[in-house]
């Protein structure tokens, strides 16, 4: 066995100009490199590609800033203008990628196939989630389950959609926290959209009163507090509704009304609640006894009520 190997080695050695093991490796690598087509990528091409991507990034930032500024200027069409932001971002990055692959790298069909193969392997091994997020972003932009400016609840988080990015959607919660949810997750979750692209939005205001209090008068007061609020928007299609629900130890008076601008949601709720309670107190309408709302809510959740 050892003799055979020595023979083989001695047969190889005359053909290698430098001789020894290093000669073998150089020979092998040169034969491999002649089989694989050259990508023809040098440092200037890489720099050009990076420059295009940097310009695309700068362009998206400028477009986002300009469209955001414009949306606040044209107050009544704010959401319509903001809808264009994710579309513009995808268009700019899409064009940049096309330009990098097509003009800067100037890939031939064979190179493109090789690149696709490499990209496929990369996606399969390590970038699967990133690609799923990017695809999710495209689906969100095209399918529009929500738009920038909408009030949504995703995965238990409620807030205003501030940005639909390539990878994730950003919400701002009522307490001003920035919540980032991956686009892939958005598509697999149950999503609640409070206004669906419209500036108007329904707000539900619940007040709880003692069972012994005058519920009819409480409903009247809550209705008046709602229709006189400076934030309310009333029309034939956006009526104000006041409802009463009886619970074992208390009653719930509920007002459903619209605000013209969804950003006024919490001011509206607060304004109506404050003035309604002032009127309740003046008319002897009392809140439930301490703790009974929790008892009622608990039993309702348990399916007893």
């Amino acid at each position, binding site marked *: 066995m050892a003799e055979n190997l020595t023979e083989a080695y001695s047969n190889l050695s005359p053909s290698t100009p430098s001789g020894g093991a290093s000669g073998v490796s150089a020979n092998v690598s040169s034969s491999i490199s002649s089989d694989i087509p050259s990508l023809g990528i040098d440092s200037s091409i890489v720099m050009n590609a990076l420059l295009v991507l940097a310009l695309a990034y700068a362009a998206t930032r400028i477009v986002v800033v300009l469209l955001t500024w414009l949306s606040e200027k044209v107050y009544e069409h704010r959401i319509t203008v903001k809808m264009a932001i994710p579309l513009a971002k995808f268009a700019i990055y899409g064009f940049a990628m096309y330009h990098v692959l097509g003009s800067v790298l100037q890939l031939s069909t064979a190179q493109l196939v090789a690149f696709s193969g490499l990209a496929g392997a990369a996606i399969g091994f390590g970038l699967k989630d990133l690609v799923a997020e990017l695809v999710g972003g495209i689906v969100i932009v095209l399918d529009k389950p929500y738009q920038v400016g909408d009030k949504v609840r995703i995965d238990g988080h409620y807030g205003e959609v501030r940005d639909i990015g390539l990878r994730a959607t950003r919400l701002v919660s009522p307490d001003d926290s920035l919540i980032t949810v991956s686009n892939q997750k958005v598509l697999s979750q149950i999503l609640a959209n409070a206004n669906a692209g419209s500036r108007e939005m329904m707000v539900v205001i619940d007040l709880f009163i003692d069972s012994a209090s005058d519920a009819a008068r409480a409903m009247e007061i809550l209705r*008046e*507090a709602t229709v006189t609020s*400076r934030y309310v928007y*009333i029309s*034939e299609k956006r009526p104000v509704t006041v409802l009463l629900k009886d619970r074992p130890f208390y009653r719930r008076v509920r007002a459903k009304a619209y605000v*013209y601008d969804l950003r006024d949601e919490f001011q509206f709720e607060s304004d109506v609640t404050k003035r*309604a309670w*002032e009127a309740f107190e003046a008319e002897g309408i009392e809140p439930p006894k301490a703790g009974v709302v929790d008892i009622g809510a608990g039993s309702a959740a348990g399916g007893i009520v």
Partner: protein
Amino acid sequence: MTPRFEEEISLIKKVIIDFGEGHRSNLAVISDPFYGESELVDRVEGMTGEEGIRINARTLIRDLEALEDARGRIVIIEEVHRLYRRKIGGFDTMNSFLKMLVCSDRLFITTWNSYSWKYLDEVLDLGRYFSRQIKLPKMGADQIRDMLLSGYEEGELTFVEEEPPKAEELKVLSRGSYKKTLMGHCVQIPRPVVDTRSVRSRLTKTEKKPPEDVFFDRLTRISDGNPGVAEYLWKEALDYPQVRNALKDPPSIGLDYDDSFALSIVLSMGSVEVEELSDVLEPLDLSAERVVGLLEEMELVFLEGDVVAIRSEALKSVVEHLRRLRLVW
């Protein structure tokens, strides 16, 4: 003067005749502030004769019972929108009035502020109570011209165009400023202002219209077809026997939401006492005195005694601003 409201008068006449024949249709005449509907009411009052009675709703705010005691089968009530206030408990008088109207066998001819009407129509469904409604329309340039020139002979007045500035003086951009209160000090921050009139005049090179046509087109645009506002602006421009085309475009308004809401209350009433305004704004923790001071400074309202009223020349921009915020619709 060319008789106005001919169409409306014939409609009201029909309502009165129908009432005489036993068919009652209560009537609401709805108009923008300053429209001059009192001229219409004067004529209606003349038509009703002994059977009619004319009351201003201001007198009913504290004593609605007076309406029941009033004689007359035809009741003309002006400014019915004064019977409500935009606050909890502010609809009681209006509801009592509507209840009385439904139970009564008398004919009610009423006038309303258009912005209050639209609001109350959504809140109280006013349309159900008034089977006949007349909305006084906006007037065109020709109608306004006929109305204003009816008292003058042809050629009696000379329409003078303001000297157009020399071409080199036509500035597209000029320097403006806005006031901002910083740490208790009022600071004027400069900002560029685009002169849209200048831009328009450079872009449009159309055939020159006679000064009279130019004046009435501009008057109609600035008054938004409101005859009361047009009449006010006409008086400002008239320097007999000359009419100077020095009409200013209405100012643009930059007000925050709360102050805009207060402005919407004034607009919905046409004019309102500071005390009444305070009654609405106090539960919202807003000071009526402060808001009135601000609106007066911005030349959107004027204060006469303790009554605040919209400036007629600012009406168009006030309505546009409040519509944009959907505080009126």
